[in-house]
């Protein structure tokens, strides 16, 4: 999965150098009690070094009107964050998702209907942005596949039941010689 060369590369990668203190030593040995400050220092270093994922919708984005905001949430849950794996823009911390959330709220504040907002997004990103794909030629199988299975199987069952009812009940075959012999042996034993 990871070639050993790449592994070593990762292994020797810059964390230790950049933070200046070395990574593993303070981790394997607990810091002294007076380490409050150095811990803080650590956090600062990390916060600077790595962009930390934010948790989805942020307070600064929330619209003052709760009705509008709840519509924005409803829409946000149905729009895909186009750079993420299976995440809606409401669940994603990506930059793009943030921009899309803002765009949704801008459109809503400007008086657009939900449908307008979806149309606006589809115009920019295509059908791909909709987590519920539109019903059209390309998605026919997706939408109708399962109900079709239900209908066909249900119909087949009904037909079979009707046919069975029409047929006279055939009594089971009488035992043949071999079976009779075995049965006798069993009953005697």
């Amino acid at each position, binding site marked *: 999965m990871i070639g050993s060369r790449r*592994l070593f590369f990762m292994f020797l990668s810059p964390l230790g150098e950049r933070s200046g203190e070395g990574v593993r030593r303070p981790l394997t040995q607990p810091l002294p009690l007076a380490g409050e400050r150095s811990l803080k220092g650590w956090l600062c270093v990390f916060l600077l070094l790595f962009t930390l994922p934010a948790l989805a919708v942020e307070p600064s984005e929330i619209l003052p009107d709760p009705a509008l905001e709840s519509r924005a949430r409803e829409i946000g849950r149905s729009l895909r964050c186009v750079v993420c794996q299976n995440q809606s823009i409401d669940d994603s911390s990506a930059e793009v998702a943030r921009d899309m959330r803002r765009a949704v709220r801008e459109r809503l504040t400007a008086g657009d209907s939900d449908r307008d907002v979806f149309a606006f997004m589809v115009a920019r990103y295509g059908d791909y942005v909709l987590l*519920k*794909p539109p019903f059209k030629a390309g998605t026919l*199988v997706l939408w109708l*596949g*399962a109900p079709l299975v*239900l209908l066909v*199987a249900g119909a087949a*069952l009904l037909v079979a039941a009707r046919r069975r009812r029409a047929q006279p009940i055939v009594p089971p075959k009488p035992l043949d010689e071999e079976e009779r012999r075995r049965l006798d042996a069993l009953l005697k034993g």
Partner: protein
Amino acid sequence: MVAELGHFALILALAVALVQGTLPLVGASRGDLRLMSLGRTAALTQAFLVLLSFGALTQAYVTSDFSVLNVVANSHSAKPLLYKISGVWGNHEGSMLLWALILALFGAAVAIFGNNLPDTLRSRVLAIQALIGVGFLAFLLFTSNPFERVFPAPPDGNGLNPLLQDPGLAFHPPLLYLGYVGFSVTYAFAVAALLEGRVDAAWARWVRPWALAAWCFLTLGIALGSWWAYYILGWGGFWFWDPVENASLMPWLAGTALLHSAIVVEKRDALKSWTVLLALLAFSLSLLGTFLVRSGVLTSVHAFAQDPARGMFILAFLLLVTGGGLALYAWRAPQLQGGGLFQPVSREGALILNNLLLCTLAATVLLGTLYPLFLDLLTGNKVSVGPPFFNATFVPLCAPLFAALCVGPFLGWKRAELGPALMRLRIALVVSLAAIVVAMTMIDSRSTLAALAFGFGVWLIVGSLASLSDRVRSGTLRTIPRSTLGMVISHASLGVVVLGSVATSSWNTELMQTMKPGDRVDFAGYSVLLERMDEVRGPNYIAERATLNVSVGGKPYTVLQPERRLFTVQRRQIAETAIQTNLLRDFYATLGEGDPRQGWVIRLYLNPLAPWIWLGAALCALGGFVSLSDRRLRIGAPSRKPVLQAAE
């Protein structure tokens, strides 16, 4: 040295599995008892060898043997012991070894507990089980060897994905695999039955405990995964219709259908070929799930293997197992004559409806999961299928299923009347209608659908318990067969799950606020004070921790301490939510980004009935285990004779 022993044991296990997968089959077709009895010994030997191999890898993890590549890539000396152990299966190679181990253990279990099986059937089942094992052992040895060494050994490892360093996720894979792999036994039974050309009540009774055990573990595994997602992902959701979740849901649905149709085979000697087909499908869907997750076709947290060679291997194996099983089915199934006749309105009819709906649900999930993939392959068009799609297709299909679920147990076998059954359910009907009205008027008047779903949850609980009312009245509750009791528990607990998921997703309260230490907010009748922010140090992470004092009416109520953990080795950040539950609702808090100047983003949720989702799921599995402990399955070797009794 130990790693080499483990590697060697794995090679031996493959050799044993090859023997176990061939000779007993020959023996069964020739009637050679010596060859047939080889299956039992081989199954035990194989289990021992794979266990040895697994033990060797575990040893390497626990002692942090960084000369083993797999340990270097997935472990770290500073990791707590629990996660050193769970790290064994927290990566591609190790998890496949766990899979092979559970497979071999199930094989050994069949060998041990299968004394009442006819020799030919048992040796065939063991052989099929071994052939599946050959596939996985070869997969391990040729594409994913967990014992590969690295030279020179680095001083320390890369650590485990922090998302996986969690008690919930430590036990999620073993439980899930017990479920997935458990269906391999039903698959083996189905193939063996097709080879023998014989499916009867005794066969159904032999298969049922295995299907039931697999189903229970799968239920627990899915529930644990969902619980983990709930508290780790930090926005209070519990099911995301992620392909990985769907991959585990499909075999669960097929397995549930199988459990029900096997009853019909056992009691009424009908639905034989359909039940065999379901047994084949349940395991095929388990394999499909493994393929989807392991191949990296659908990238997500779980796809730690993104190597096309592996994907191709699993895909080929999947096609072989599924295609082989289905081809054999097409060839032999027409010989399986159904016996019992019945009217559409009857217990059999209700169980067929159950199967029809469960299979449609499974088809919905399958289509929704694979459609984007196929569309992309065939036309290059991209399409997204997410939660809104499943909410629009999957959820409505549950309504008829839930409606029928309570009625079925009141219908007699062969021929029944709907009217009397509904009469006995009148209290349940009234109570659930009342619940809908209450939900509409008192909780939320806007969401009719949520109220309706809530009513269904109540219907499931009361309607399932209603089947006990006769026994309560006649004072025979104590003598109730465990299988019936298990059914009532599982059915009712489904209602508990429905209530929990409806309430938490429709009626939750949420607040998002930027706060500095000393700030106070009012939230749903509680007053929440951010007392202080601390920096804390864990064994292998450092964290920011918020201390939130929650009070009601001036009295202190609880203290919540959500954290943001930074795993230093992987440089990844994980939100550690704080949840206070009283079993009726969760008070859920997460800590977001922030600094002392601007304050921190605090998220508060009040999730009504949220704990019921996992409580219900656990109860559901408990029902399965209760049913598994039924006398009928424990004692008395079922013999090959028609079962005339049609009780329960």
